[in-house]
């Protein structure tokens, strides 16, 4: 069954009840990552950190291919700068950073599937070496066949109800989330 992805993203945005006009300009991948982060950070007290102490490390398999195809369709007519800017996977990180004022380390990696070992290992290095105090990390995919976002908030200080950040734990949670087919 064909799902209306823009319609779905818009309904989540409306459900959250936030006002953020920039949302409408974003491509589907940025919208998906942005919305997932809104939910993830609902109770996050970012004020206890410096902006440069909070980072974002995201991964997916398809890079920005969804936006790439839309942009290249526009090239046949008049190339659209508004579409071109989204033809980079790290733009979703930029949108998240603008929204939440995060200025720390950021990186976008491509894997054929969720690489829990790498995400766990690399984010742990960033926290342990003091590059970051908190990090949003995980997977944001917007593919021709469907979409999926699984994000984690990792902090150095243990909070109530927090679970240990390890590869097996994030892998399990990643698998528990289905791939929403188009």
């Amino acid at each position, binding site marked *: 069954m064909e799902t209306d992805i823009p319609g779905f993203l818009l309904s989540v945005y409306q459900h959250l009840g936030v006002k953020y006009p920039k949302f409408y300009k974003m491509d589907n991948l940025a919208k998906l990552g942005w919305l997932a982060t809104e939910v993830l950070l609902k109770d996050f007290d970012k004020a206890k950190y410096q*902006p*440069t102490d909070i980072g*974002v490390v995201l991964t997916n*398999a*398809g*890079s920005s*291919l969804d936006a*790439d*195809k839309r*942009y*290249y369709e526009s*090239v046949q007519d*008049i*190339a*659209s*700068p508004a579409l*071109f*800017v989204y*033809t*980079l*996977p*790290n*733009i979703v*990180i*930029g*949108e998240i*950073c*603008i929204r*939440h*004022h*995060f*200025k*720390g*380390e*950021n*990186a*976008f*990696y*491509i*894997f*054929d599937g969720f*690489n829990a070992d*790498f995400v766990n*290992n*690399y984010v742990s*290095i*960033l926290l342990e*070496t003091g*590059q970051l105090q908190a990090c949003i990390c995980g997977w944001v995919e917007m*593919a*021709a*066949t469907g979409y999926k976002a699984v994000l984690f908030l990792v902090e150095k200080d243990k909070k109530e109800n927090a679970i240990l950040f390890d590869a097996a734990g994030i892998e399990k949670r990643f698998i528990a989330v289905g791939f929403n087919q188009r």
Partner: protein
Amino acid sequence: MKKVYLVADNITSPLGATTAQNFEHLVNDVTGVRQHNDKAISDERFFASLFEKGYFQTDKCWTKFEHLVIASLTEILYGVDKNISDKKTVLIISTTKGNISLLETEEPSPELDARIALHTSAKKIARHFGFVNEPLVISHACISGLAAMITGMRLIQSGQYDHVVVAGADVISKFVLSGFQSFQAVSPGLCKPFDANRDGINLGEGAATVILSAEKTDGETIELASGAVSNDANHISGPSRTGEELYFAIDKTMKGAGLQAGDIDFISAHGTATIYNDEMEAKAVTLAGLQDVPLNSLKGFYGHTLGASGLIEAIVSAQSLKQNIIIPTKGFSKQGDANRVNVCSQLISKPLNSCLKIASGFGGCNAAIILTKSQQDIS
């Protein structure tokens, strides 16, 4: 913390197939940028640094992007034992758009999507050379090359790997050029980094590879002393108005290397020759107290090679340290009034120990690394 050394490098560009060939051309003021008239890429004539047609072409087995990465890796790995199949060795690939030109020539299909995917290329290439670990791909706009080096450095420092092979490449096709044209960001002539009359970028093709290792080689070796990444959190396609966030990355990487402003002998800037990028970089460099340190941009020689640019420019900078030569900024002739920095306009020969390399890109990302001559070599 473990030290990380640059033990081998390659630049494959229109200027040559080895680092030595490339550096020789830079010293002799030879650029790869020229005017092209290629309707497959652009209806209008444009300036760019491109490989000769037919030099690297998509075939049944490899895409043009993959051919470029393979050429760079082959040259660097030729005849030397770099423990490629060791469990403590990993390949990192840096690119912004990889195989995207296939969208222009191939029929849409799920198979095409899979062929374009960067992990497909990375795995094919890793298998071809005999790497045993799953390769990493970083695609982080114009800081991809530096971000890949920083990732590699951290993976060595943490002890997970002993050797990290970092390879980057990008190809210029209609997709990429039309995008920069749509932003009105392409110069109608040769680009003029940091010049008062700068009017946009030239694009370029290229590949580069550097091998990072925990083991120092004999002779003079360049060390990747530290690196940092930051985000502007300001605008997705325009740089920070203040340069504060790039400054933060510069400051952090200098502190990480234990260096002060007076220790930096030259700066290799991103210097795309757009009004806003160069102005932002100049502000950040000034905030760091580095406004008098000789600074260059290599975009007048290579154009902007996107995912390869950070690697190409870091390798040239390492070569500059070894040969004690700072390459001038081709295209620069007239200093603007605002945000004066010490743009290097003529070849400088003097003893060099440390270099700061910076880059910034779409999505508000900034990166900085410090390269130094290994301390043992200096003393």
